[in-house]
């Protein structure tokens, strides 16, 4: 008898352990029953006590559509400063794109359209830009945008009194003047890409809390931020353009990839960008749509061109012949992704040279011959440094390491923290090879190509080609757009021929959107335009 009671108590303990608080009442029933049958009532009790909360949770879901809100999952917190002129991380730009605007802004096709300026005219010699300010544009704090604010915002980015300017290209401005609502910017030399730099955010001149409580002119205004938790934006009712489709957007941060999936499944999130193919198969097709865009970056095995054995062009070419890009995309990305052959991706339109993609086709014997010629007939050992916070790069590195075995190259993958990557690989250039994606902060071809000029401060691969440097000088001096485009394409070809890096792909950007939410628009930039999202009627 005593034993039976004890067994019952034990069962009670186990049940409480397994089901915790919500099983308290049914567990008491279990004690009354015999130990043998304890499992069944406990299981029933669990579903009983949980049922009402399930209903309330479902109610919450319809609640967000009813209150015209959305929740977006993001994988990292924003920069320390929300001041758009000081923004560093692509993830911060992606969110704050909805809060700020420049004189012009990008549209989904990659063109620049007027925003704070109503229109722009360029003089025939390409030296004078005349902007007409739009009437009635307001900041989120209610103040109207004045000429003073516009000039202050541009000057702030062009100021190089303390070393380098925030936007170095703006130092070519020789004069800024204004007449009524017209802004005249004069350049010292023509620059075909100049307008794209004026996507820089227009901010109020006399406001000093931009770091923590940013104020801009975009369709959404910033409401609050909780560290490692959430960012809240609300529709700006005095927006000059098309009003946003939802009233409120909550960005929820989950640095754990599993957390984003659970958030979507549980109804806590409605939109998550940059998902992988293995993640989306966990989601129900009846609940979500998956839209495929591109990440707009160049994923490659970047080689330190100053480091042995990659200082030899034949070794670099051998690697290019040994790596099967499509194989990588099929193995690690379930076929999603666009193979690339140089440091340019398709969103750049006329600058993108598709013919370079198949410059190197897999040819193991040729690769081996090149290695032998370079003095490595039996291959060599190498290290691939990979930022470990991003699984797709880790997966890619693994497939490549496997492929390189075919030419006798033994690659060891060394995962590092992002902060270590920045200081050792990117700034310190102390590495042999690294697998990352590189993009451009502005939609300009030169932003992509400038980094491979031998003297560039951000030439982290130590690429050095006199031809390439000369081409870049020529491109800068060129006033004719068509001619300049050809030179840029010539530069891309130079990178491919000299096998500066082992180019792989522009990765697919899989965006998961809850059914009922419409209006997802892709841009050729790393942004998510939430102003176009809206719940279906």
């Amino acid at each position: 008898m005593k034993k039976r009671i004890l067994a019952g108590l034990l069962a009670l303990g186990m049940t409480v352990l397994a089901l915790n608080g919500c099983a308290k009442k049914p567990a008491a029933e279990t004690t009354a029953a015999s130990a043998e049958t304890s499992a069944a009532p406990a299981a029933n009790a669990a579903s009983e006590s949980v049922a009402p909360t399930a209903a309330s949770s479902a109610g919450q879901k319809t609640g967000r559509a009813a209150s015209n809100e959305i929740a977006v999952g993001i994988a990292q917190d924003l920069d320390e400063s929300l001041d758009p002129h000081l923004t560093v991380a692509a993830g911060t730009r992606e969110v704050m794109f909805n809060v700020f605007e420049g004189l012009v802004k990008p549209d989904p096709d990659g063109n620049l359209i007027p925003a704070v300026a109503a229109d722009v005219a360029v003089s025939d010699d390409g030296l004078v830009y005349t902007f007409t300010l739009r009437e009635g544009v307001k900041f989120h704090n209610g103040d109207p945008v004045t000429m003073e604010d516009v000039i202050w915002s541009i000057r702030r980015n062009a100021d190089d009194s303390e070393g380098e300017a925030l936007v170095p290209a703006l130092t070519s401005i020789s004069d800024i003047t204004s007449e009524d609502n017209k802004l005249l910017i004069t350049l010292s030399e023509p620059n075909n890409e100049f307008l794209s730099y004026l996507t820089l955010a227009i901010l109020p001149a006399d406001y000093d809390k931009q770091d923590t409580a940013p104020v801009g002119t975009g369709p959404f205004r910033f409401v609050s931020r909780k560290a490692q938790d959430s960012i809240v934006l609300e529709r700006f009712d005095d927006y000059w353009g098309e009003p946003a489709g939802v009233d409120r957007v909550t960005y929820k941060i989950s640095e754990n990839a599993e957390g984003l999936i659970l958030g979507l499944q549980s109804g806590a999130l409605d939109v998550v960008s940059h998902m992988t193919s293995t993640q989306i198969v966990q989601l129900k097709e009846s609940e979500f749509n998956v839209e495929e865009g591109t990440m707009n970056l160049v994923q490659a095995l970047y080689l330190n061109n100053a480091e042995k054995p990659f200082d030899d062009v034949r070794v670099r070419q051998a690697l290019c012949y040994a790596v099967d890009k499509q194989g990588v995309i099929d193995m690690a990305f379930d076929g999603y992704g666009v193979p690339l052959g140089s440091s340019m991706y398709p969103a750049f339109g006329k600058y993108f040279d598709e013919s370079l993609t198949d410059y190197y086709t897999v040819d193991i014997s040729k690769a081996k011959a090149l290695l032998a010629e370079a003095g490595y007939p039996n291959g060599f050992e190498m290290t691939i440094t990979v930022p470990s916070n991003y699984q797709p790069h880790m997966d890619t590195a693994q497939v490549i390491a496997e492929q390189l075995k075919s030419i006798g190259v033994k690659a060891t993958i060394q995962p590092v923290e992002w902060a270590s990557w920045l200081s050792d690989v990117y700034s310190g250039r102390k590495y042999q090879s690294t697998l990352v994606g590189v993009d451009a902060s502005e939609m300009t071809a030169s932003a992509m190509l400038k980094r491979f000029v031998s003297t560039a401060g951000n030439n982290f691969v130590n690429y050095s080609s006199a031809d390439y440097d000369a081409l870049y000088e020529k491109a800068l001096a060129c006033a004719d757009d068509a001619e300049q485009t050809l030179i840029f394409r010539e530069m891309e070809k130079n990178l491919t021929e000299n096998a500066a890096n082992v180019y792989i792909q522009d990765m697919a950007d899989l965006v998961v959107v809850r059914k009922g939410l419409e209006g997802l628009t892709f841009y050729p930039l790393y942004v998510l335009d939430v102003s176009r999202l809206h719940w279906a009627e």
Partner: protein
Amino acid sequence: MLRGSSRQYAADVVPEAYCYMRSTVRRVLMLLATMIIVSFLTYAAFELISGDPAEAMLGTQATPARIAALRRELGLDAPFPVRYIRWLLGFFSGDLGVSYSYKQPVGELIAPKLEVTLCLCLLSFVIITLISIPLGVLSYQQVVGRFGWIHTTLNQLLMAVPAFFTGILISWGFGIVLRAFTPGDFPDLHMDPAGAFRHLLFAAVCIAIPRTAMTVRMMRSTVISEMEKDYVQTAISRGNDRQGVLLGHVLKNSLVPAVTFLAQTMAEIVAGGIVVEQVFGIPGLGRLLVASISNRDYPVVQAIVVILAFWVVLAGLAADLINQCIDPRLRLGGGS
């Protein structure tokens, strides 16, 4: 003999109070020393690993000039000992500094996170204590019985399962299938305490499972070894009820190691919490700590590490005091 000696000390009140005070003072000093050593080690660890706050903040847009300017602004241009002493002086004057990653005073930044983590840890501690002590005593009976191996196996299994795995299972089972809470949507602790509590409860269980299994095992072996002792055997052979001896004498003697073990558990809970906070999407200290380490946000990491050290030392201190109440023999243990 045991009773005689305790009466003897009880009569001599003054030296006991004196010893008590002296040991308390020593305890507090030890607490301070531990925190200083831990903070120094943390600071030194960042010196040894690669990665620099200024470089991390500027990311791919870093230029040598910008890095130098930012390092000067953050006071990172000073040599390591100077920076550490600056931090230490600030700490003792109540100034924890400003977070690099959020441009917010560290105290302000971590206070709401501390609240959440404290609730989570206390909740799982309560679960562990309430379940494992009775269960440990009861499972002694079971081990002796026929189905002992079931308990042993189950116990081993629960001990071995990593928290992130149970976390995903619980989130999926209770969050997605049963909808008992919404993973990824943690309600504000002040706006919706009930909702937040429910969310925390599942996370707390997840932390509690392996520790409960360990405590049960520890409790059981303590009871077993205690039951074999002479005084128990004597009591039983004199005709005392076995159950009565277990509850009346053995249990009390088994509590001392249990309390010590539970104090260690306090530290383990915090460590487990870091993982579980990530899985359950709970905005607590653990998540902030992980993010701050990767951002090289020194002031935040320092503050959190010192809080955790304080927590661990405090748990040990509490355990000693409780044990002294349970077993008066321990009172002078440290003094003599």
